[in-house]
């Protein structure tokens, strides 16, 4: 994809900062087993509630587990929910948006009104309500048992889909009315060929921007769900559960317990937002026009 490479070259400094943060956290999540100094689940009663020092850079928690190792492994939960949910949401939402924009008529009305309905209730309310109803155990779907994490990814993905549907719909509606789509139709191209070959490629930029920004929201949602105990289940590390466990430590002085997972969440969210904003600026038609004229 030469387009993507060109895009990355046009990033400004804040975009590069965002890309750097996101890249580092991605690497940390992927290579967590290699770089984590301790076992994230390993209890060490001797060393419990140790302040950050040379042995435990970010200190230890009530069970003597190394906070740095838990944050590194927790990145896996956060990123997989954030990115997985965005991929699922994009798949559903983009299909729905393109369908509504291209088909028009009654189908368009039905799809977009359903989208409005889902979008009218705040994401987090939906997420907590549905997980609360389904419970935190594995969900049987046919002969398959869906673990809670997968359930959350799918759920947040479904909740993201209206956002993707709206963004895609807005752009696809314009493109579906463009003369080059009419021309393809006049040549006898099938609807499928037109949608895949002409409509979708021209909708991609806003979808990518939206996806980048939604990863950040997905991470916050995962942390929130885990914080209230409906997400990643202990002892598995997640930034949300770590924060939840650290509540009692806020008053007793073990500042490193809430501070570092909180910092990890903030940093990741800032990283994805910076990246998303920079990519949006790049795809902006005005900045596009500037590069086209040159």
């Amino acid at each position, binding site marked *: 994809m030469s387009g993507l490479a060109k895009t990355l070259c046009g990033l400004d400094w804040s975009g590069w900062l965002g890309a750097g943060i996101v890249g580092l956290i991605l690497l940390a999540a992927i290579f967590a087993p290699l770089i984590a100094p301790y076992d994230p689940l390993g209890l060490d009663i001797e060393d419990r509630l140790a302040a950050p020092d040379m042995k435990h850079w970010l200190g230890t928690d009530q069970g003597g587990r190394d906070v740095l190792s838990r944050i590194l492994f927790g990145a896996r939960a956060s990123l997989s929910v954030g990115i997985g949910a965005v991929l699922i949401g994009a798949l559903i939402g983009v299909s729905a948006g393109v369908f509504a924009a291209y088909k028009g008529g009654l189908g368009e009305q039905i799809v977009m009104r359903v989208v409005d309905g889902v979008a009218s209730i705040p994401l987090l309310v939906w997420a907590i309500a549905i997980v609360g109803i389904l419970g935190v155990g594995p969900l049987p779907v046919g002969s398959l048992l869906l673990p809670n994490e997968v359930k959350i990814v799918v759920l947040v993905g479904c909740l993201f889909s209206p956002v993707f549907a709206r963004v895609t719909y807005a752009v696809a509606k314009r493109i579906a009315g463009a*003369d080059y789509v009419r021309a393809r139709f006049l040549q006898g*191209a099938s609807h499928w060929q037109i949608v895949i070959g002409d409509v979708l490629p021209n909708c991609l930029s806003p979808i990518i921007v939206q996806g980048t920004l939604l990863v950040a929201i997905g991470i916050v949602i995962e942390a929130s769900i885990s914080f209230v105990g409906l997400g990643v289940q202990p002892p598995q590390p997640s930034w949300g559960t770590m924060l939840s466990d650290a509540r009692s430590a806020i008053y007793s002085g073990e500042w490193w317990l809430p501070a570092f997972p909180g910092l990890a969440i903030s940093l990741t969210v800032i990283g994805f937002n910076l990246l998303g904003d920079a990519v949006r600026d790049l795809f902006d038609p005005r900045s596009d026009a500037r590069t086209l004229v040159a």
Partner: protein
Amino acid sequence: MTGPILSLRGVSKSFPQGGMLDRLLGRDGRLVALDAVSLDVMRGDVVGIVGESGSGKSTLAGLAVGLVRPTTGDVLLDGQPMAELMRDHAGPWRRRVQMVFQDSSSALNPRKSVARCLGETLALRGVPKAQCESEIAELLTLVGLGPEIGPRLPHELSGGQRQRIGLARALAMKPEVLIADEPVSALDVSLQAQVINLLSRLTRELGLTLLFISHDLALVRTLCSRIVVMRKGLIVEQGPCLDVLDRPQHPYTQALIAAVPKGLAGRRTPLPVRAADAAAIPETREDIHGAA
């Protein structure tokens, strides 16, 4: 054998107006874009269709090319009704009638190179891959461009070049009828002349039937053999181009011609019809037919 290649038989087209709520409440009105129009286009004719904005020119183009289905009436290609020829989506109508669009920047997919755009069109006509390259070069030569333009993207082309690619794409289907909807109104005057000359040459060389939709009487005079004057969804006058332009019978045609400043016959400066003139023009269908 000598029947019209394209004919409209009492074709009307109206569009629903108002939103879904209006429709539910029964407050829907319909905008009549074309009102029982009949028109025969003979093979090889170059027909200019003129009229003010909203007169139904573009709806007529959409009908002829099969983008718009008539509300009532029939559109026939070589004597066969549209409904029959279009039963299959990729039916014969699609290959035999093609269109050149007004806005060259919207007529080409911004992400497809010229070669890909033409290649995909040829593939839809069933041209084998091996022949595509030579056919693309041929098409480019036909519209007066070199093969070096093949790898370029639309934004790397000038407006005139884009319009030629749009024309080449239409010709790639080897159509019998070409519909050009204001193909030069977005181009500057020197480019207009080039594209008009190109159209004129191609219709002669390829034996194309051309429907040229324009509001520019000077261009129609130079290019077309016949002229159709439209107003408010009706054909008010039609006939051989020079006859109509030199001896207009209908008051609206007279007003259109009078609106072009004297001495500027070759320039693209259609002025709006003056209020006094407009008042004298019959408004209703009965008036128009009574006057004609």
